[in-house]
């Protein structure tokens, strides 16, 4: 692994979802999008809030609140757009964030034994230990938790 690859692998975007600070591997992040309109329509998939249109693409918006807790303000919502795997393919997904994102370097530690599937590991930042999100596992691992929310979202 060369220096550039190592730097990329050890770079994380720190973001705030609700009241929680979490990290996402920087290599997965596509962009921080401005608070564009969230389009909703009936569906039954848990933990999806709707879609946004960004650069000519329809991007599904992951509703993290039922899992991570904390209500983020609906106004001034930014979207962190990242690549995620869905089965064998990959597509972009957006997470509502409050816009305060920073870059940090560090080595990800394995997750605790009882961590949920959406936690890929932990990252030490200062005195804090932040969960590193695994977006690929997000909707699948938490589909049961978000079942009731999915029904609400479809209304």
């Amino acid at each position, binding site marked *: 692994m060369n220096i550039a690859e190592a730097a990329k692998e050890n770079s994380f975007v720190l973001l705030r979802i609700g009241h929680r600070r979490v990290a996402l591997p920087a290599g997965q992040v596509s962009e921080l999008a401005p608070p564009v*309109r969230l*389009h909703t*329509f*009936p*569906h*039954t*998939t848990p933990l*999806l809030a709707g*879609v946004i*249109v960004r650069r*000519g*693409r*329809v*991007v*599904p918006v*992951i509703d993290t609140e039922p899992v991570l807790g904390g209500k983020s303000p609906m106004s001034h919502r930014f979207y962190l757009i990242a*690549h*995620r*795997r*869905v*089965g*064998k*393919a*990959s*597509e*972009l*997904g957006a997470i509502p964030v409050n816009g305060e994102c920073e870059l940090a370097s560090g080595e990800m530690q394995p997750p605790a034994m009882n961590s949920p599937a959406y936690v890929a590991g932990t990252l030490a930042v200062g005195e804090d230990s932040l969960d590193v999100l695994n977006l690929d596992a997000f*909707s699948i691992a938490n589909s049961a938790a978000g079942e009731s929310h*999915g*029904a609400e979202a*479809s*209304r």
Partner: protein
Amino acid sequence: MTTATKSAAEPHADSSAKPRRGRCPETVVLFIVANQMFAVAADSVHEIRSTDSIAGTANEIENPELPKVRHTIDRSGRTYYVVNAGMHFGLPVTRPALVLILRQFRAAVLVDRIDRMAEIPGVYPLPLAFTGDERRWYRGLAYLDDSVIPVVEPTGFLTPQEFQRLDGAQKEAARREAEAAVQA
């Protein structure tokens, strides 16, 4: 064909929803159910009638097999099952005023109102993140006037299994009716 198959199989193939290239623009009917707008291909709609105009000819299903289908209507010698679009999509209950009678399927759809007909430049595939019933409900998404509108799949209103159940119940009801008529 080969390229597309290969691309879909690649683990990192980015399948983010972009409009399908090479698709011709198409004319759609935009309709409203519980304040939610939907689109349906205009050529899949045979007829649009008011619920008042068919009230006299609609037959109530005595023991509905499916809560979303409570009536049938007879048009041109065929029996159409009338699907309440609000119940189908899990939307709040409304008072539908129109019936869209579909062209190639024995189904008609109760909707609140027609917004207009419009031409859409193309259909975006539904993002893969959507894995629920919506994959059967929609052909994809349209982007029109700064709004994302689901483009409904007409065959999604009733599955073949649902048609089978409804047909079975209808036959049984007809048999009971005939028996009752003989006894009388």
